[in-house]
């Protein structure tokens, strides 16, 4: 057991921190939001240049073969800088499907575009009725000749507006809430029958509702077993949850720093409000919540490698619970301690709060994961 970063990890951290320190202050971020799709192609290219988009892919696939700790480092840094670019959607989620389930041909076709930053992806999973259950899939993929015809609606697809390629879950057999009979398909975003309605999300990212009407794809579109891809979906989504935990830690870390700075300088009644014990104790409680979240982010990263699938899933669910609780407390108190200024769009802190809020309800909220941990018999 060793919590220190290796030399390489330290270099990676310096690299991403340095890049964001230069290129991603709050004012620049406002400009990036106004670019097409709500994020900056320039930043995306820089991430590619520094190899960050190829991080988790194997060397033979053109990547760096990095592991969970490296993703944690990157996501935490991105949280700290409130990064808009679609790293989660493209590298973690869609890249994850290709890494864990993709055929050699699929990898060859798609990974280079991800790694060199020329293509972005989106993962179309959420349906109107599915909420947090990954196995609840009404969108259908019906066999037609060698290929498939996809019909259905997907909602709140992160980066869905902008993506070149979509990774879509669809049912090939069984009833809407059956665990088997689910497939994962690669669909070009410009395929016939794909309609996208894009919009900004509450946290300033962009998403889309996407309709698939008789969308035809070839036999090579299915990633993994089209009759039984749920284990693959669960694995990849678990990795996304781990990445979100790390992002949230970055967000909370920066929220606390910003808040402490603010109450040190903001004066009321002739003194800095940070001299009031009740605010000091609140900030201390935020620190406690942050450190507990940081621990669980590390735990989740560690858990990705657990052999026992149930233990792995339960551990990651537990991390999402802790992150959800800590994020809510830290986010809300950061606003409270800022007072009125925290309520304005002009102040940075509100944007952290909003992103933290959205993370809580992405891929399962606190209650949902609490129930999963309970039903698995707990952690002890």
């Amino acid at each position, binding site marked *: 057991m060793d919590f220190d970063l290796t030399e390489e990890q330290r270099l990676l951290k310096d690299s991403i921190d340095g890049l964001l320190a230069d290129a991603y202050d709050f004012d620049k971020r406002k400009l990036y939001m106004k670019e097409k799709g709500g994020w900056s192609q320039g930043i995306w290219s820089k991430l590619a240049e520094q190899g960050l988009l190829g991080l988790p892919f194997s060397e033979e696939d053109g990547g760096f073969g990095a592991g969970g700790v490296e993703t944690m480092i990157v996501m935490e840094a991105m949280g700290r800088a409130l990064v808009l670019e679609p790293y989660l959607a493209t590298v973690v989620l869609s890249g994850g499907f290709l890494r864990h389930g993709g055929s050699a041909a699929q990898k060859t076709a798609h990974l280079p575009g991800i790694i060199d930053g020329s293509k972005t992806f989106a993962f179309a999973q959420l349906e109107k009725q599915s*909420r*947090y259950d990954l196995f609840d899939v009404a969108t259908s993929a019906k066999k037609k000749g060698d290929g498939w015809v996809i019909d259905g609606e997907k909602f709140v697809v992160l980066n869905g507006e902008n993506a070149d390629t979509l990774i879509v879950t669809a049912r090939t057999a069984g009833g809407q809430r059956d665990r088997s009979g689910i497939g994962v398909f690669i669909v070009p975003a410009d395929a016939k029958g794909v309609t996208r309605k894009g*919009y900004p999300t509450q946290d300033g990212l962009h998403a889309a509702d996407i309709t698939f009407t008789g969308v035809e794809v070839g036999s090579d579109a299915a990633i993994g077993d089209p009759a039984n891809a749920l284990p693959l979906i669960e694995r990849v989504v678990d990795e996304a949850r781990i990445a979100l935990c790390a992002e949230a830690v970055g967000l909370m870390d920066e929220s606390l720093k910003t808040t402490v700075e603010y109450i040190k300088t903001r004066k009321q009644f002739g003194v800095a409000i940070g001299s009031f014990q009740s605010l000091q104790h609140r900030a201390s409680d935020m620190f406690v919540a942050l450190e507990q979240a940081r621990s669980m982010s590390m735990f989740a990263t560690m858990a990705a490698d657990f052999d026992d699938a149930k233990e792995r899933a339960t551990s990651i669910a537990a991390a999402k619970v802790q992150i959800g609780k800590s994020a809510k407390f830290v986010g809300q108190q950061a606003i409270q301690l800022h007072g009125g200024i925290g*309520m*304005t769009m002009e102040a940075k802190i*509100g944007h952290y709060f*909003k992103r933290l809020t959205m993370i809580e309800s*992405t891929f399962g909220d606190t209650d949902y994961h609490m129930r999963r941990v309970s039903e698995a018999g707990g952690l002890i």
Partner: protein
Amino acid sequence: MDLAFTKEEQAFREEVRQFFRDNVPAETRRKMVEGRHLSKDEMVTWWRILNKKGWGVSHWPTEYGGTGWTSVQHYIFNEELQAYPAPQPLAFGVSMVGPVIYTFGNEEQKKKYLPRIANVDDWWCQGFSEPGSGSDLASLKTKAERRGDKWIINGQKTWTTLAQHADMIFCLCRTDPSAKKQMGISFIVFSMKSKGVTVRPIQTIDGGHEVNEVFFDDVEVPIENLIGEENKGWDYAKFLLGNERTGIARVGVSKERIRRIKELAAKIEAGGRPVLEDPSFREKLTACEVELKALELTQLRVVADEGKHGKGKPNPASSVLKIKGSEIQQTTTELLMEVIGPFAAPYDVHGDDDSNETMDWTAQIAPSYFNNRKVSIYGGSNEIQRNIIAKAVLGL
């Protein structure tokens, strides 16, 4: 001690409720239910209906148009209004500057302003907070200098609610710069159309525009626009802030929102059953309902007790209203967030269009959650409220 509403009180509740049913414009109600912003016109239209009925300035002395209701009647009226829901009378006019004018203003001022306030012929806003003043209101810097028969006003106010609609402002200005903090402040009213007044919107984290910065650059104001005595403005401000005691709990608002939560949670499914049947969601909702019921009773105790403690010595329980009231409001918005789950994310997809489908107004849920963070900050933050309880009630 008789803890039931009297027959008369129950009849009054029915009367009020029926009046709302018959008179609140349906569109206004729908927007309120869905947490949307109302247009200025929609608000003013409704307030004039209310004023025509004689209920626009219900708590004013009867000589100025008030109703002479008991405090329990006021309570019932407000609760029903919030719960229907319909917009409450514009506080800046009716609850704030109105009472200051009829209490401290001269006859001319009363005649000039009060009827216009009651009928919302003028939309008023409040010029108290300044950048840097926050909870320490008395540190304000906006100054009014006397020049001939004019006040020349320079400075900046902030958090000025709905100033974009306002015709008039009541303003705390420093008129004696040499006096100590609370001294040397005067209460001056003037037109927002005056030359030198600039309103700059503040966009809040929910994306809304409720508050503003207001700049005064050599604004000329007639000398007779001073209310009461020069340099006594701080007393009037304290009087004004002290009037707002029980409304702050917003029990009716929270009740209405809980009804909305139940409606929505019965429709939306999670894990194959309505969210409303999820035990842990249900427990959180029930816990909130219990706290709200307790708060309602606490409020009734304060209401029933009003006047008995005398001015400046309110019922100790009244300090509870702001803290619990704001916590419960925030909890209800959190519960709505939980109900809607991943569909909280889309920002303003459908704008203010008129479609009636569920998903249409759910884009308001996250903004409402964000927006409601303010209720534990403004009107004396909950930290300040705890200071007040510790000092004024517990003697610490």
